[in-house]
């Protein structure tokens, strides 16, 4: 049976929860939008949450004693298996509830990873978890490279970006493959809820997290996480860059609910790509021709998304 949600007409800052579950004192870099996104997500999910984290920045900056930022149960196992761990936690909880060992109640199981832990090494276990239909949310915080080990390319790194393993130079333009579209791969699993979100749009993000939590079965959130350190940009611009990513069409905000796609932040007139790339050192080497090529592709993808809107995928 399809779960339906009533549209939320009013969303004001005062309606956002004050409760924090990912608290201050962690070791994230200045201007880390990923830590910002994690804080927002867990502020909404609240206390009855268990988190399984893949290896990555968020593991390193938030977990070590005595700087632990988590005030909910949290487990890290390895790099390739956050979704499998979350699957196990969810299955264990449901058995315990079924046997009456613990009371029946909603405990939100969350698997989380970066783009490397999701799109590369963790894709197999993520696909398995989605296919098995565990009642969990998996969240990919996408900062578009392996930032924890020092800015190496992933399959989620955008075309043309310079990283330490896709260095730009006379023989290379940097990353030479196009970003892997994980949200659409997840949609291909026919799970009830898939969405992209960004901490630069907190209300949109909040609504999507709530929907993901409410849905029965697996939900996948792909959250844009600007990384000033890895993208070679000013740390005070992280939120602005997140907005520019949406307004230039680089990272469109949409959701796929029961297979039906809806763009949640419409941008009929996309801004020029340069407004997005000019602030980031990782794109500094790109010439106009390459930028135009990227812009064409971005526009093309965005129009494709628009055409799919309202259609059952």
């Amino acid at each position, binding site marked *: 049976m399809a779960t339906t949600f009533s549209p939320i007409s009013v969303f004001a800052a005062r309606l956002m929860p004050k409760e924090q579950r990912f608290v201050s004192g962690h070791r994230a870099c200045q201007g880390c939008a990923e830590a910002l996104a994690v804080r927002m997500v867990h502020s909404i999910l609240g206390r009855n949450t268990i988190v399984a984290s893949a*290896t990555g920045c968020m593991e390193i900056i938030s977990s070590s004693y005595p700087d632990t930022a988590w005030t909910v149960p949290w487990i*890290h196992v*390895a*790099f*390739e298996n956050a979704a499998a761990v979350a699957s196990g936690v969810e299955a264990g909880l449901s058995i315990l509830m079924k046997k009456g060992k613990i009371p029946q109640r909603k405990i939100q199981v969350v698997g989380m990873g970066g783009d*490397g832990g999701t799109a*590369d*090494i963790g*894709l197999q276990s993520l696909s398995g978890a989605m296919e098995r239909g565990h009642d969990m949310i998996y969240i990919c915080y996408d900062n578009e490279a*392996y930032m924890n*080990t*020092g800015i*190496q*390319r992933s*399959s989620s790194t955008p075309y043309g970006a310079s990283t*330490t*393993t*896709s*260095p730009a*130079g006379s*023989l*290379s333009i940097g990353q030479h493959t196009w970003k892997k579209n994980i949200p659409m791969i997840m949609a291909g699993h026919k799970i009830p809820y898939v969405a992209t979100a960004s901490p630069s749009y907190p209300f949109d993000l909040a609504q999507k997290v709530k929907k993901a939590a409410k849905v029965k079965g697996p939900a996948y959130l792909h959250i844009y996480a600007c990384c000033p350190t890895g993208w070679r940009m000013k740390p005070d611009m992280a939120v602005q860059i997140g907005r520019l990513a949406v307004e230039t069409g680089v990272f469109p905000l949409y959701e796929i609910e029961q297979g039906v796609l809806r763009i949640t932040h419409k941008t009929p007139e996309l801004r020029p790509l340069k407004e997005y790339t000019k602030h980031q050192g990782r794109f500094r080497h790109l010439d106009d021709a390459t930028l135009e090529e990227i812009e064409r592709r971005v526009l093309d993808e965005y129009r494709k998304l628009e055409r799919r809107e309202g259609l059952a995928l």
Partner: protein
Amino acid sequence: MKADPKGVLTGAHFLDGDHACCEGALAAGCRCAFGYPITPSTEVVERISRRFPMVGGVFLQMEDEIGSSIAIQGAAWGGKKVMTVSSGPGISLMMEHIGLAAMTETPCVFVNVQRGGPSTGLPTLTGQADMMQARWGSHGDYETIAICPNSPQECFDLAIDAFNLAEQYRIPVMFMMDESVGHMTERVVIPEADEIDIVERRYTKKPPSDDYELYALEDDNPFVPPMPPVGEGYRFHVTGLTHDDKGYPAMDAQTQQKLIRRIVDKIRLNADAIAKYEEYQTEDADIILVAYGITSRVVIRTMEMAREKGLKVGVFRPVIVWPFPETRLKELMDQTKAFVVAELNYGQVVLEVERLVAGRAKVVLAGHGGGDIHDPKEILRLVEEVAK
């Protein structure tokens, strides 16, 4: 055969071990590497990603270590000298493919910049606790070669040996660096290309035919069959299943025994030829410190302090730890009273020393959990106790 000058960065450099390892691979003729970021080995692939394209080589970052460890084997059968680089958890993921390389006799080099473990352990700090994994980490019976450099200079020099041995014995060679050596920056002198000896791949002399036998021995080499060149009409079948000389699966006890006997013997019976070790003041030593990798530098200090105190202490350093330099250790055993084995784990290589010594001298472990190197004074205290 001498090195191709294109890949040799002749001169004196100030490099860390990770970067020196990349240069060693280039000098050895490696032009194809696959890898995946993992601390503390990431700097090797970072340098590879810059340097390999400059000499016409290929570096691809794979989706994980499983992908890296098998992609190199595809490239090896395609005719390239290949390597992959990782650490702790990544090496654990590669284990199935290390066994495959042993079974299919694929020449390849696995660089392991060891860190503290098990599991995620200490990503940024040192360890030497993967020595038994390097030997027998994959399932089944096989032998590998494991080399432990103790300086950036050796990360360069011994990387060349690693590729040469991989070609000579058609085997996965484990290049066992550690975080200390990988992140230590020192003077590295890279010689002229014509001073670097390179072992080229041995190809079959038989013409392509329907009866071509992939694993048939040639050239009076009783251990290592030559490989077929790719693109010259040879049709062959490579499999991890137990296979006959033709390369096809033949799953019976006889074939298994013949095959495994050979892939084990090619290392065991050549152990003396492969052996590489160093000794310091062992001539008159009553106590011999045994250490490899970074720890072999620590024990030199212990030896000096012990000598100042009038104790007759020497150092035996296996440069190639697997196969263990058994013959030399047995010789030393007859002239010394005790061995103190120092390693950054709680007893791995010491087991091999104990096995060889078999009670004829005292064997004591100076263990350490990793994350840091030994304090030479701690080892000295142990030496003094043993000397009593």
